[in-house]
């Protein structure tokens, strides 16, 4: 069996993370009885909390895996709370005990403090060597209650995931709550009342295996031949057409996009391909939202909403890799509510939509952030949070040296490079989790960038008034570096409203000619010209100024560059 068996996407395997939940069925014998264990592997990262919560809703128990070399992370807490909210039986487990840096005693103590109980009850396991795995499976059977449900009742199955497969259409993952479903049966989606024929039904073990049906408590998949995941909506209840259930199961709320970014093809003629690619990704990722958008600087593209920064990063990477597109993603932005003096209100998901005229108030989304780190880093973390306009909610110790800090922070301050900064300032020890915490008024302004006096919409951003000057200066300086010298002087300005806050100048180029063609090698010179011609295609004309795509990408990304990959 290959490593990372359930992480099927290349991007998951490369980064060592889980993005999509995967269900798996495992037979296990204890005391002469064979049990069927239905398990779901979930993501851990905060962006995918939505994936986790709907998986937890389909379960009776949760195995809380904690890295024995790293201890509890903020996301551990977040997922634990989710599990507790769903009344699940929790089995704490320390994983990766084979690592030289593992400290199982220390972290068992921490875990015990967190969920109560004896540190010795915490299982020690190595997924790599298999140590402790058999004991864990035994314990699951002993501790997690068997599914309750009425086998005789009309069928009710909860859809917890829905994935598009280019060969088989939509594959719907369900957890049977009551009754049973069989192949060739007509099924009904309770929310839409749509009927489909069940072409195939089976379990994942760990590859899909066709079965004669699914009974109470079982987790499996359904294939009906539908082509669009939206017809097989996550959270919906599947029932039998012939003998329908009366009440659907409690569903899930739709995930709400938190971060927005404009995604543009570098080659404008790729626009239809980008649309098609987004449509395809949408089939397996219901949390992805997008609508067409036009930028004066970047042309036609889409404004896309994401669950968080990692989600954004993963979607753009998948678009580029799986659909062979070259893209520009504009600086991530959050949703502002802007009210003008005249009382008119605006919802701003793109800085270029920020209204002109007198502004009465700007409200921005806030998050409650939970940061866990060794106590030595408390000072550093507080400094960072303060510089990001955070206000502390509380601070709490776990065990001897682990501290939890909770902050109220503007989401906009987190989406930029907060996580990278937090990791680098704490040598990677701090972990972060956050949740929606409503809206709050902020003293926010729009900073515009002008090339030769012309506003470039793609470079506009909304920042706190106190940071506008530093931000404008930084972007102007960056553009001066990134835009090649032209045949004329190009002034760069940063402005808030009509007030210029920073200024740089790209001097006119003075010499752009090669001295000679050695030995009559005209071919080489022509090839060079052709290469430069190709390069010009990657330039966007902004007024008379040629701006390379790299300038957009670099100026819009955070200054510290891409930090380590997030977990």
């Amino acid at each position, binding site marked *: 069996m290959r490593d990372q068996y359930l992480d099927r996407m290349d991007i998951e395997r490369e980064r060592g993370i889980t993005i999509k939940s995967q269900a798996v069925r495992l037979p296990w014998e204890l005391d002469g009885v064979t049990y069927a264990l239905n398990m779901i592997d979930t993501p851990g990262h905060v962006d995918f909390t939505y994936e986790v919560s709907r998986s937890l809703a389909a379960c009776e128990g949760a195995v809380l895996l904690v890295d024995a070399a790293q201890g509890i992370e903020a996301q551990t807490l977040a997922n634990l709370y989710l599990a507790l909210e769903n009344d699940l039986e929790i089995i704490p487990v320390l994983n990766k005990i084979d690592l030289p840096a593992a400290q199982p005693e220390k972290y068992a103590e921490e875990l015990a403090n967190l969920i109560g109980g004896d540190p010795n009850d915490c299982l020690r396991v190595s997924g790599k060597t298999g140590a402790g795995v058999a004991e864990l499976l035994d314990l699951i059977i002993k501790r997690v209650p068997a599914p309750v449900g009425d086998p005789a009742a009309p069928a009710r199955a909860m859809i917890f995931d829905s994935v598009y497969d280019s060969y088989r259409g939509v594959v719907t993952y369900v957890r049977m709550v009551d009754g049973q479903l069989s192949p060739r049966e007509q099924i009904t989606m309770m929310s839409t009342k749509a009927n489909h024929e069940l072409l195939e039904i089976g379990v994942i073990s760990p590859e899909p295996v066709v079965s004669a049906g699914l009974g109470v408590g079982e987790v499996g998949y359904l294939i009906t031949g539908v082509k669009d995941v939206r017809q097989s909506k996550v959270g919906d209840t599947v029932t039998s057409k012939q003998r329908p259930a009366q009440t659907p199961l409690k569903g899930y709320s739709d995930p709400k996009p938190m971060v927005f970014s404009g995604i543009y093809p570098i080659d404008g003629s790729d626009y239809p391909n980008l649309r098609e690619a987004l449509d395809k990704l949408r089939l397996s990722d219901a949390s992805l939202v997008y609508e067409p958008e036009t930028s004066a600087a970047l042309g036609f593209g889409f404004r896309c909403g994401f669950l968080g920064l990692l989600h954004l990063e993963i979607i753009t990477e998948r678009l580029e890799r799986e659909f062979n597109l070259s893209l520009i993603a504009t600086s991530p932005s959050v949703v502002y509510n802007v009210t003008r003096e005249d009382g008119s209100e605006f919802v701003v998901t793109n800085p270029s939509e920020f209204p002109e005229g007198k502004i009465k108030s700007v409200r921005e989304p806030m998050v409650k952030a939970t940061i866990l780190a060794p106590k030595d880093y408390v000072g550093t973390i507080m400094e960072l949070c303060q510089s990001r306009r955070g206000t502390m909610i509380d601070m709490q110790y776990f065990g001897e040296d682990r501290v939890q800090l909770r902050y109220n922070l503007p989401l906009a301050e987190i989406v930029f490079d907060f996580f990278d900064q937090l990791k680098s300032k704490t040598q990677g020890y701090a972990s972060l989790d956050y949740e929606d915490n409503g809206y709050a008024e902020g003293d926010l302004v729009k900073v515009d960038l002008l090339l030769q006096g012309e506003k470039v919409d793609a470079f506009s951003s909304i920042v706190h008034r106190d940071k506008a000057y530093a931000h404008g200066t930084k972007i102007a300086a960056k553009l001066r570096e990134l835009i090649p010298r032209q045949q004329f002087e190009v002034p760069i300005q940063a402005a808030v409203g009509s007030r210029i806050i920073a200024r740089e100048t790209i001097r006119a180029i003075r*010499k*752009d*000619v090669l001295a000679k063609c050695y030995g009559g090698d*005209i*071919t080489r010179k022509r090839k060079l010209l*052709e290469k430069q*011609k190709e390069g010009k295609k990657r330039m966007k004309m902004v007024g008379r100024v040629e701006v390379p795509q790299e300038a957009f990408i670099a100026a819009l990304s955070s200054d510290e560059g891409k930090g380590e990959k997030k977990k």
Partner: protein
Amino acid sequence: MGALPAGEPWPLSNQLQSLRNSGSFHAYVHIPFCEVRCGYCDFNTYTSSELGEVKRSDFHNALINEIQFSKRVLGASGIETTPLQAVFFGGGTPSLMAADQISVVLAELQSVYGFDSDIEITLEANPESTTEGLLERLWEAGVNRISFGAQSFDPDVLRVLDRTHRPELLKPLIDSAKSIGFRTSLDLIYGAPGESIDSWKSTVERALSLGTEHISAYSLIVEEGTKLAKQVSRGELADVDEDLNAEKYEWASSEFAAHGLDWYEISNWGNPSIHNMAYWESRNWWGYGPGAHSHINGNRFWNRKHPLAHQKALEQGAPAIGWEAIDVQTHLVESVMLRLRTKQGFPKALLSELGVPAEKVAKYLALGQLKMDRDRIYISESGRLLADGIALDLVSSLAS
């Protein structure tokens, strides 16, 4: 000169297509030998230790073989040539060849192709390997123009360039050359790391004081893979400052003009070299020797680079390793790119044939970087240093 351009293989038939008549015929002869390799140089040249079994004293035989080969190819292709208008011995260091060797090569060229009565026969000479005696023998062999590789008169700059000669050598050599009857030219390089504007000015003044009828001034290009490139990337030497180079160029150009050497091509001033212009006007020339490039009626082809590979390939068939046919569109693009470098520029009709939008041309005319008379477009003094960028822009809107 980096990697050879990728092209098609040389035609197995040893025949060229005649795509258009490119007019007069010229020969370039590459002498790939040097005593030492200069730090900035990425030309196709070899010191004695790098040559393997190739002997410098036999090298003329390979050239004679290739002249015979060119005769067969042109004959089989039905391409008629006019008598040679120019022969250019470039390098490497052609002055390392014995005058007798030059003499037999010239005799072969003359017997195969004939010489125009006004033929220009140039040989590049390095001051340190040239003597009055050699000059006399070269004159007897038929050479009538010497291009001296002076590069700079500042010993510090020469050291950075790894040039081993003393600048004082040049004056007596040029005096002798002139008294023998040679037309003379000087090659200068500006923009070496550490060269100040004053150093360059004094180089220009000393060059002008020698009274050659032609000067080439090339800006130093830090070519990938050279010792100089490594020194620059390690930070031991300063990188090229193109703004300073622009200042040096402009100063030199006006100084040359003030001394009667009129500008005629980006890097050349004075009495135009026929050979030089043949490149920019895409005339016909055959490049003999390792790594040499040729252009015949719309065919471009280039030889194997190492002297041994070149020699072996000649014995077995054809020395060329790559070939390409220049179609009409490519020819027009090349013409803009090359002719924009010259005083004459190109015919207006060229732009309409290419489909260059009138607004583009109008923009440069308005900026004063291009000029126009009844039927030609040419580069202005202020546009000269931007010629490559302008040519790129003119041809960039075209379908590729």
